[in-house]
């Protein structure tokens, strides 16, 4: 479905308080990433803040800032996914649920924004309005919320509006960037169930989250990232017991750090301490 082959991403920055303050430097934000994501799976990408998870999402969607330097190969359904193809597929085949709530336009009513999303996915205007209505109903947003502006919505409602906007696009690959932040357990479960439901329909979901706990119940496979590097990709069922079936110390530590698992450094097997655990 989607293969990522030796993907490396660099962004420019300037050093502060340095003699050569005018000189541009490059920071490596994604470092030699290789992933294969197959149809019908929920693939979780887990890592701390700053691990490069969101940048990976933007790289797949082709939404990186123009100054970014990208190398490596992306393939979508056996064909190279270059900038031109990304532009064609965005909204129709590829959808993104953004992390930031400020992705909603504060000057446009909710219902209209969702309708626009449907139109951009190629639906005619009346069809788009109905599709938007159905999606909003599905995520339990009532008439009042549909007629509201972004600042009048609660965090959880806004999150559901963003999910609904990805929902109307009928995309084959959905990238959900931290879709559970700010939701109560009940709503979080609804969103995660909805993502699982998409995968069960044969679509592909990339679930980006910093919380391994939320990813494991719905994910088929999990990729752990750290500092732009891929630590390891494992089946979700490998995260069990004391984590000895995991290949890497960092993923093991992440698993053991969950409140249900009593974490002690001693439990991490010696030969797997490739990365020091801070």
């Amino acid at each position, binding site marked *: 479905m989607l293969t990522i082959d030796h993907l490396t991403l660099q962004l*420019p920055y*300037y050093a502060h308080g340095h003699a050569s*303050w*005018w*000189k*541009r430097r490059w920071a490596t934000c994604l470092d030699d990433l290789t992933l294969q994501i197959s149809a019908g799976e929920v693939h979780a990408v887990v890592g701390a803040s700053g691990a490069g998870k969101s940048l990976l999402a933007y790289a797949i969607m082709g939404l990186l800032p123009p*100054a970014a330097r990208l190398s490596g190969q992306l393939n979508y359904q056996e064909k190279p996914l270059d900038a031109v193809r990304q532009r064609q597929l965005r909204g129709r085949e590829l959808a993104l649920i953004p992390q930031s709530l400020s992705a909603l336009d504060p000057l446009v009513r909710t219902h209209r924004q969702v309708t626009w999303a449907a139109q951009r996915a190629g639906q005619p205007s009346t069809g788009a309005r109905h599709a938007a209505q159905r999606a909003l109903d599905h995520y339990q947003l009532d008439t009042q919320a549909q007629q509201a502006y972004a600042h009048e919505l609660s965090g959880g409602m806004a999150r559901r509006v963003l999910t609904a906007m990805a929902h109307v696009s009928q995309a084959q690959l959905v990238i959900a960037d931290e879709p559970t932040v700010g939701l109560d357990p009940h709503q979080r479960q609804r969103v995660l169930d909805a993502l699982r439901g998409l995968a069960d329909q044969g679509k592909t979901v990339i679930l980006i989250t910093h919380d391994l706990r939320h990813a494991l119940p719905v994910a088929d496979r999990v990729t752990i990232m750290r500092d732009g590097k891929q630590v390891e990709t494992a089946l979700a069922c490998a995260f069990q017991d004391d984590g000895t079936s995991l290949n890497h110390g960092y993923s093991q530590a992440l698993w053991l750090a969950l409140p249900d698992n009593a974490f002690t450094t001693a439990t991490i097997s010696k030969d797997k301490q490739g990365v020091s655990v801070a």
Partner: protein
Amino acid sequence: MRQPQPRLRAAISLVVTGLLVIGLIASQWLLGDTPQQMQFEARLAPPSVDHWLGTDALGRELWARTLAGLALSFWVGSLAAILSTLIALSLAALATLSSRLDALVSLLIDTLLSVPHLILLMLIAFALGGGTQAVIIAVAVTHWPSLARVLRAELWQLRQAPYVRMSRAFGKSRWFVLHGHLLPHLLPHCLVGALLLFPHAILHEAALTFLGFGLSPSQPAIGVLLADAMRYLSGGYWWLGVFPGLALLLMVLGFERLSRQLRRAL
């Protein structure tokens, strides 16, 4: 593909502008009294090899007068911009001391902003009786409100910022807070503000002088040159009107560009 490097560009612009300004100042020293020298045999001569930009009604070289005018504009503009920035900074600082002072300062800002700049300039120049000093003071006094508004908002925000309050709570002195926390934030604003004010100051000085309220007609200011040119407009002496204004435009454009690049780079 070569990508633009904003900071490198800004650094180059800074050097080029600096060299041009030094050249402009040096040229005044080399020119001596050429701008005022009359040539009776070459009155209103069009541009040629002998008279690069032509001569005016008294046979004075236009290129020399234009250069002198640019230097004059530069001095008046930079002094006024610096003075204006200092006024803005001190009033913004004053406004943070108490809410009553703040109300007073914001009333003053509103008052000055509600009168068109040019009218206020005319009033102040009128009150001070004209001349170079009057123009510098008038331009400085009219241009600070917009910058003061920015600085005032910034200072209020900084005062509320947790790290500044923590610093006070840890028993750091007022001086330390000002020096260590506030100034590093405000200085870039002031620098960019002064650079932004500078082109405005130059343009307003020229306009004021052009209308007859600013520098005295005996000085070779750009405004004076253009006001002179007005009288010879219908006679077809186009060079008198075109060149001084073009020179002023190029200078203002140069500084505008520099300030834009610095803002983008910082």
